[in-house]
Protein backbone atom coordinates (compact mmCIF):
# COMPACT_ATOMS: atom_id res chain seq x y z
CA UNK A 1 0.00 0.00 0.00
CA UNK A 2 1.22 3.48 -0.81
CA UNK A 3 1.81 5.46 2.41
CA UNK A 4 1.38 8.81 0.64
CA UNK A 5 -2.26 8.05 -0.20
CA UNK A 6 -3.10 7.14 3.47
CA UNK A 7 -1.73 10.35 5.04
CA UNK A 8 -4.62 12.75 4.10
CA UNK A 9 -7.18 10.32 5.58
CA UNK A 10 -5.21 10.23 8.87
CA UNK A 11 -5.02 14.00 8.93
CA UNK A 12 -8.79 14.23 8.39
CA UNK A 13 -9.42 11.72 11.16
CA UNK A 14 -7.27 13.62 13.61
CA UNK A 15 -9.02 16.89 12.67
CA UNK A 16 -12.43 15.29 13.27
CA UNK A 17 -11.29 13.98 16.64
CA UNK A 18 -9.93 17.39 17.56
CA UNK A 19 -13.26 19.03 16.67
CA UNK A 20 -15.22 16.34 18.55
CA UNK A 21 -12.99 16.81 21.61
CA UNK A 22 -13.45 20.59 21.53
CA UNK A 23 -17.24 20.19 21.22
CA UNK A 24 -17.31 17.69 24.11
CA UNK A 25 -15.20 20.02 26.29
CA UNK A 26 -17.47 22.96 25.43
CA UNK A 27 -20.58 20.90 26.25
CA UNK A 28 -19.04 19.87 29.60
CA UNK A 29 -18.17 23.51 30.39
CA UNK A 30 -21.69 24.63 29.41
CA UNK A 31 -23.26 21.94 31.63
CA UNK A 32 -20.94 22.85 34.49
CA UNK A 33 -21.81 26.52 34.20
CA UNK A 34 -25.55 25.74 33.97
CA UNK A 35 -25.37 23.48 37.03
CA UNK A 36 -23.46 26.02 39.12
CA UNK A 37 -25.82 28.80 38.05
CA UNK A 38 -28.91 26.81 39.03
CA UNK A 39 -27.45 25.41 42.22
CA UNK A 40 -27.35 28.99 43.64
CA UNK A 41 -23.79 28.50 44.85
CA UNK A 42 -22.95 32.09 43.98
CA UNK A 43 -26.19 33.52 45.34
CA UNK A 44 -25.13 34.37 48.84
CA UNK A 45 -21.51 34.40 49.90
CA UNK A 46 -22.52 33.95 53.52
CA UNK A 47 -24.92 31.03 52.95
CA UNK A 48 -22.80 28.38 54.71
CA UNK A 49 -22.00 30.72 57.58
CA UNK A 50 -25.69 31.57 57.87
CA UNK A 51 -26.71 27.91 57.99
CA UNK A 52 -24.16 27.36 60.80
CA UNK A 53 -25.68 30.28 62.72
CA UNK A 54 -29.13 28.74 62.34
CA UNK A 55 -27.88 25.30 63.46
CA UNK A 56 -26.32 26.88 66.55
CA UNK A 57 -29.63 28.51 67.44
CA UNK A 58 -31.58 25.30 66.86
CA UNK A 59 -29.33 23.26 69.13
CA UNK A 60 -30.34 23.20 72.79
CA UNK A 61 -30.83 20.73 75.61
CA UNK A 62 -34.13 19.42 76.91
CA UNK A 63 -33.39 19.38 80.63
CA UNK A 64 -35.18 21.77 82.97
CA UNK A 65 -32.18 21.79 85.26
CA UNK A 66 -31.34 25.39 86.15
CA UNK A 67 -27.67 25.11 85.19
CA UNK A 68 -28.57 23.46 81.83
CA UNK A 69 -31.10 26.21 81.02
CA UNK A 70 -28.59 28.85 82.11
CA UNK A 71 -25.89 27.34 79.88
CA UNK A 72 -28.22 27.45 76.86
CA UNK A 73 -29.26 31.02 77.71
CA UNK A 74 -25.61 32.09 77.87
CA UNK A 75 -24.93 30.34 74.54
CA UNK A 76 -27.74 32.27 72.85
CA UNK A 77 -26.20 34.83 70.52
CA UNK A 78 -28.77 37.34 69.25
CA UNK A 79 -26.33 40.03 68.11
CA UNK A 80 -26.23 39.24 64.40
CA UNK A 81 -29.85 38.37 63.70
CA UNK A 82 -30.19 41.15 61.10
CA UNK A 83 -26.74 41.06 59.53
CA UNK A 84 -28.06 40.58 55.95
CA UNK A 85 -29.82 43.97 56.06
CA UNK A 86 -26.64 45.80 54.98
CA UNK A 87 -26.06 43.31 52.13
CA UNK A 88 -29.63 43.89 50.86
CA UNK A 89 -29.14 47.68 51.14
CA UNK A 90 -25.95 47.38 49.10
CA UNK A 91 -27.81 45.45 46.37
CA UNK A 92 -30.50 48.15 46.17
CA UNK A 93 -27.83 50.88 46.08
CA UNK A 94 -26.02 49.14 43.24
CA UNK A 95 -29.29 48.67 41.33
CA UNK A 96 -30.11 52.38 41.70
CA UNK A 97 -26.78 53.45 40.12
Amino acid at each position, binding site marked *: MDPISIQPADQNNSKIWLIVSIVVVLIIIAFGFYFLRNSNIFETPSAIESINDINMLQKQG*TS*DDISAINADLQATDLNNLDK*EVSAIDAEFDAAAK
Partner: protein
Amino acid sequence: MHKKSNEIFIKLTVSSLLIFPVISIAQTNIDSARNLWEEREEVRQENIQARNELNNNISEKLRAVQNEIRDTRESLKIEVKGLSKDEIKQRLEVFRDESRTKRDEMRKEIQIAREQFRNKAVERRDELKKKIGEERAKRVDAYFVHMMDRIDAAVDRLDKLADRIESRLNKIHDTGKDVTDLQVALDTVRSTIVTAHTAIGEAKIKFSELSKDDTPKDQFIVVKEIVNIIHTKTKEAHAALVDIINTIKKGRLDVEATSTPNTQ
Protein backbone atom coordinates in the same frame (compact mmCIF):
# COMPACT_ATOMS: atom_id res chain seq x y z
CA MET B 1 -55.39 58.36 -15.84
CA HIS B 2 -58.81 57.23 -14.68
CA LYS B 3 -57.78 53.61 -15.15
CA LYS B 4 -54.64 54.18 -13.11
CA SER B 5 -56.56 55.74 -10.21
CA ASN B 6 -58.98 52.82 -10.33
CA GLU B 7 -56.04 50.45 -10.04
CA ILE B 8 -54.69 52.34 -7.03
CA PHE B 9 -58.15 52.29 -5.45
CA ILE B 10 -58.47 48.53 -5.97
CA LYS B 11 -54.99 47.94 -4.59
CA LEU B 12 -55.74 50.06 -1.53
CA THR B 13 -59.03 48.25 -0.97
CA VAL B 14 -57.41 44.82 -1.26
CA SER B 15 -54.55 45.92 1.02
CA SER B 16 -57.07 47.22 3.58
CA LEU B 17 -59.00 43.98 3.43
CA LEU B 18 -55.78 42.10 4.11
CA ILE B 19 -54.57 44.49 6.81
CA PHE B 20 -57.81 44.65 8.80
CA PRO B 21 -57.78 40.96 9.85
CA VAL B 22 -54.13 41.33 10.86
CA ILE B 23 -54.95 44.43 12.92
CA SER B 24 -57.95 42.68 14.38
CA ILE B 25 -55.89 39.62 15.36
CA ALA B 26 -53.17 41.86 16.83
CA GLN B 27 -55.80 43.79 18.81
CA THR B 28 -57.29 40.53 20.10
CA ASN B 29 -53.84 39.36 21.17
CA ILE B 30 -53.12 42.66 22.92
CA ASP B 31 -56.48 42.46 24.69
CA SER B 32 -55.95 38.88 25.78
CA ALA B 33 -52.39 39.70 26.96
CA ARG B 34 -53.81 42.63 28.94
CA ASN B 35 -56.52 40.42 30.41
CA LEU B 36 -53.95 37.78 31.31
CA TRP B 37 -51.76 40.41 32.99
CA GLU B 38 -54.78 41.77 34.89
CA GLU B 39 -55.76 38.27 35.97
CA ARG B 40 -52.21 37.56 37.16
CA GLU B 41 -52.12 40.84 39.06
CA GLU B 42 -55.49 40.01 40.63
CA VAL B 43 -54.20 36.56 41.70
CA ARG B 44 -51.05 38.19 43.11
CA GLN B 45 -53.11 40.68 45.10
CA GLU B 46 -55.33 37.87 46.36
CA ASN B 47 -52.25 35.90 47.44
CA ILE B 48 -50.87 38.92 49.32
CA GLN B 49 -54.24 39.45 50.97
CA ALA B 50 -54.43 35.75 51.89
CA ARG B 51 -50.95 35.95 53.43
CA ASN B 52 -51.97 39.07 55.37
CA GLU B 53 -55.04 37.30 56.68
CA LEU B 54 -53.04 34.18 57.57
CA ASN B 55 -50.51 36.27 59.48
CA ASN B 56 -53.23 38.24 61.28
CA ASN B 57 -55.02 35.02 62.16
CA ILE B 58 -51.87 33.46 63.58
CA SER B 59 -51.06 36.59 65.59
CA GLU B 60 -54.60 36.78 66.97
CA LYS B 61 -54.65 33.07 67.79
CA LEU B 62 -51.23 33.23 69.47
CA ARG B 63 -52.35 36.09 71.67
CA ALA B 64 -55.69 34.42 72.39
CA VAL B 65 -53.97 31.15 73.39
CA GLN B 66 -51.51 33.05 75.58
CA ASN B 67 -54.31 34.98 77.33
CA GLU B 68 -56.46 31.86 77.71
CA ILE B 69 -53.64 29.90 79.37
CA ARG B 70 -52.91 32.79 81.75
CA ASP B 71 -56.61 33.29 82.65
CA THR B 72 -57.19 29.55 83.14
CA ARG B 73 -54.19 29.39 85.48
CA GLU B 74 -55.58 32.29 87.52
CA SER B 75 -59.09 30.82 87.77
CA LEU B 76 -57.64 27.41 88.61
CA LYS B 77 -55.92 28.90 91.66
CA ILE B 78 -59.36 29.84 93.03
CA GLU B 79 -61.12 26.66 91.89
CA VAL B 80 -58.69 24.27 93.62
CA LYS B 81 -59.01 25.89 97.03
CA GLY B 82 -60.37 23.32 99.44
CA LEU B 83 -59.54 20.35 97.20
CA SER B 84 -57.27 17.52 98.33
CA LYS B 85 -53.59 17.47 97.27
CA ASP B 86 -54.24 14.63 94.82
CA GLU B 87 -57.18 16.46 93.24
CA ILE B 88 -55.14 19.66 92.89
CA LYS B 89 -52.28 17.70 91.32
CA GLN B 90 -54.69 16.03 88.88
CA ARG B 91 -56.29 19.37 87.87
CA LEU B 92 -52.87 20.96 87.39
CA GLU B 93 -51.69 18.08 85.21
CA VAL B 94 -54.76 18.41 82.96
CA PHE B 95 -54.21 22.17 82.70
CA ARG B 96 -50.51 21.77 81.86
CA ASP B 97 -51.22 19.10 79.22
CA GLU B 98 -53.88 21.28 77.59
CA SER B 99 -51.57 24.30 77.60
CA ARG B 100 -48.79 22.28 75.98
CA THR B 101 -51.16 20.92 73.31
CA LYS B 102 -52.45 24.41 72.47
CA ARG B 103 -48.92 25.79 72.13
CA ASP B 104 -47.88 22.84 69.95
CA GLU B 105 -50.86 23.43 67.65
CA MET B 106 -49.85 27.09 67.28
CA ARG B 107 -46.27 26.08 66.50
CA LYS B 108 -47.57 23.87 63.69
CA GLU B 109 -49.54 26.79 62.22
CA ILE B 110 -46.46 29.02 62.41
CA GLN B 111 -44.46 26.31 60.64
CA ILE B 112 -47.05 26.14 57.82
CA ALA B 113 -46.88 29.95 57.35
CA ARG B 114 -43.07 29.74 57.19
CA GLU B 115 -43.23 27.04 54.51
CA GLN B 116 -45.68 29.12 52.50
CA PHE B 117 -43.28 32.07 52.58
CA ARG B 118 -40.38 29.89 51.38
CA ASN B 119 -42.49 28.35 48.60
CA LYS B 120 -43.32 31.80 47.17
CA ALA B 121 -39.65 32.63 46.50
CA VAL B 122 -39.97 32.30 42.70
CA GLU B 123 -43.06 34.53 42.60
CA ARG B 124 -41.31 37.21 44.72
CA ARG B 125 -38.15 37.10 42.58
CA ASP B 126 -40.17 37.32 39.35
CA GLU B 127 -41.77 40.53 40.58
CA LEU B 128 -38.62 42.05 42.02
CA LYS B 129 -36.44 41.30 38.99
CA LYS B 130 -38.50 43.81 36.98
CA LYS B 131 -37.17 46.54 39.28
CA ILE B 132 -33.58 45.50 40.06
CA GLY B 133 -32.68 42.74 37.59
CA GLU B 134 -32.84 38.96 37.84
CA GLU B 135 -29.50 38.14 39.51
CA ARG B 136 -29.85 40.94 42.05
CA ALA B 137 -33.45 39.92 42.83
CA LYS B 138 -32.25 36.35 43.45
CA ARG B 139 -29.54 37.51 45.83
CA VAL B 140 -31.82 39.93 47.70
CA ASP B 141 -34.44 37.21 48.21
CA ALA B 142 -31.81 34.68 49.32
CA TYR B 143 -30.34 37.16 51.83
CA PHE B 144 -33.77 37.96 53.24
CA VAL B 145 -34.83 34.30 53.50
CA HIS B 146 -31.57 33.45 55.33
CA MET B 147 -32.09 36.33 57.72
CA MET B 148 -35.70 35.34 58.44
CA ASP B 149 -34.68 31.68 58.93
CA ARG B 150 -32.14 32.83 61.53
CA ILE B 151 -34.69 35.09 63.25
CA ASP B 152 -37.28 32.26 63.25
CA ALA B 153 -34.68 29.94 64.81
CA ALA B 154 -33.86 32.57 67.48
CA VAL B 155 -37.52 33.07 68.42
CA ASP B 156 -38.11 29.29 68.49
CA ARG B 157 -35.08 28.95 70.76
CA LEU B 158 -36.49 31.51 73.21
CA ASP B 159 -39.89 29.79 73.06
CA LYS B 160 -38.31 26.44 73.98
CA LEU B 161 -36.23 28.02 76.75
CA ALA B 162 -39.50 29.48 78.11
CA ASP B 163 -41.01 25.95 78.04
CA ARG B 164 -38.07 24.54 79.99
CA ILE B 165 -38.28 27.35 82.56
CA GLU B 166 -42.04 26.79 82.88
CA SER B 167 -41.42 23.11 83.50
CA ARG B 168 -38.97 24.07 86.26
CA LEU B 169 -41.41 26.59 87.77
CA ASN B 170 -44.16 23.94 87.79
CA LYS B 171 -41.90 21.61 89.78
CA ILE B 172 -40.97 24.37 92.22
CA HIS B 173 -44.68 25.20 92.59
CA ASP B 174 -45.51 21.54 93.25
CA THR B 175 -43.15 21.55 96.27
CA GLY B 176 -45.35 24.24 97.78
CA LYS B 177 -43.20 27.29 97.00
CA ASP B 178 -44.71 30.52 95.67
CA VAL B 179 -43.71 31.22 92.07
CA THR B 180 -46.46 33.73 91.23
CA ASP B 181 -44.07 36.59 90.42
CA LEU B 182 -41.87 34.38 88.29
CA GLN B 183 -44.91 33.03 86.44
CA VAL B 184 -46.04 36.60 85.72
CA ALA B 185 -42.54 37.41 84.44
CA LEU B 186 -42.67 34.32 82.21
CA ASP B 187 -46.10 35.38 80.89
CA THR B 188 -44.54 38.71 79.91
CA VAL B 189 -41.78 36.86 78.05
CA ARG B 190 -44.41 34.78 76.23
CA SER B 191 -46.21 37.99 75.20
CA THR B 192 -42.95 39.46 73.92
CA ILE B 193 -42.37 36.29 71.88
CA VAL B 194 -45.89 36.60 70.42
CA THR B 195 -45.09 40.23 69.46
CA ALA B 196 -41.91 39.01 67.76
CA HIS B 197 -43.89 36.35 65.83
CA THR B 198 -46.38 39.00 64.68
CA ALA B 199 -43.57 41.32 63.56
CA ILE B 200 -41.86 38.46 61.68
CA GLY B 201 -45.09 37.87 59.74
CA GLU B 202 -45.36 41.61 58.96
CA ALA B 203 -41.74 41.80 57.79
CA LYS B 204 -42.32 38.88 55.41
CA ILE B 205 -45.48 40.47 53.99
CA LYS B 206 -43.81 43.86 53.51
CA PHE B 207 -40.84 42.19 51.82
CA SER B 208 -43.20 40.31 49.47
CA GLU B 209 -44.71 43.67 48.51
CA LEU B 210 -41.36 45.38 47.72
CA SER B 211 -41.91 45.08 43.97
CA LYS B 212 -45.16 47.07 44.22
CA ASP B 213 -43.14 50.21 44.82
CA ASP B 214 -41.18 51.95 42.06
CA THR B 215 -38.27 52.28 44.45
CA PRO B 216 -38.00 49.01 46.41
CA LYS B 217 -35.09 50.51 48.37
CA ASP B 218 -37.46 53.04 49.98
CA GLN B 219 -40.00 50.33 50.72
CA PHE B 220 -37.23 48.24 52.29
CA ILE B 221 -36.80 50.93 54.97
CA VAL B 222 -40.15 49.78 56.41
CA VAL B 223 -38.93 46.17 56.45
CA LYS B 224 -35.72 47.26 58.23
CA GLU B 225 -37.73 49.06 60.91
CA ILE B 226 -39.80 45.92 61.56
CA VAL B 227 -36.65 43.75 61.66
CA ASN B 228 -35.22 46.19 64.19
CA ILE B 229 -38.34 45.76 66.37
CA ILE B 230 -37.96 41.96 66.17
CA HIS B 231 -34.30 42.25 67.18
CA THR B 232 -35.19 44.43 70.18
CA LYS B 233 -38.03 42.12 71.25
CA THR B 234 -35.87 38.97 71.10
CA LYS B 235 -33.20 40.68 73.21
CA GLU B 236 -35.86 41.79 75.73
CA ALA B 237 -37.24 38.25 75.96
CA HIS B 238 -33.76 36.80 76.39
CA ALA B 239 -32.84 39.28 79.16
CA ALA B 240 -36.14 38.53 80.97
CA LEU B 241 -35.48 34.77 80.83
CA VAL B 242 -31.98 35.33 82.27
CA ASP B 243 -33.58 37.41 85.07
CA ILE B 244 -36.02 34.59 85.92
CA ILE B 245 -33.19 32.05 86.15
CA ASN B 246 -31.13 34.43 88.31
CA THR B 247 -34.13 34.99 90.63
CA ILE B 248 -34.60 31.23 91.04
CA LYS B 249 -30.90 30.86 91.86
CA LYS B 250 -30.86 33.80 94.29
CA GLY B 251 -34.04 32.68 96.06
CA ARG B 252 -32.72 29.08 96.32
CA LEU B 253 -36.00 27.83 94.90
CA ASP B 254 -34.41 25.06 92.86
CA VAL B 255 -35.60 21.44 92.99
CA GLU B 256 -34.50 18.18 91.29
CA ALA B 257 -34.29 18.40 87.47
CA THR B 258 -35.94 16.36 84.70
CA SER B 259 -36.37 16.68 80.92
CA THR B 260 -39.30 18.55 79.44
CA PRO B 261 -41.44 16.35 77.16
CA ASN B 262 -42.10 18.88 74.45
CA THR B 263 -38.74 20.39 73.62
CA GLN B 264 -36.08 19.05 71.27
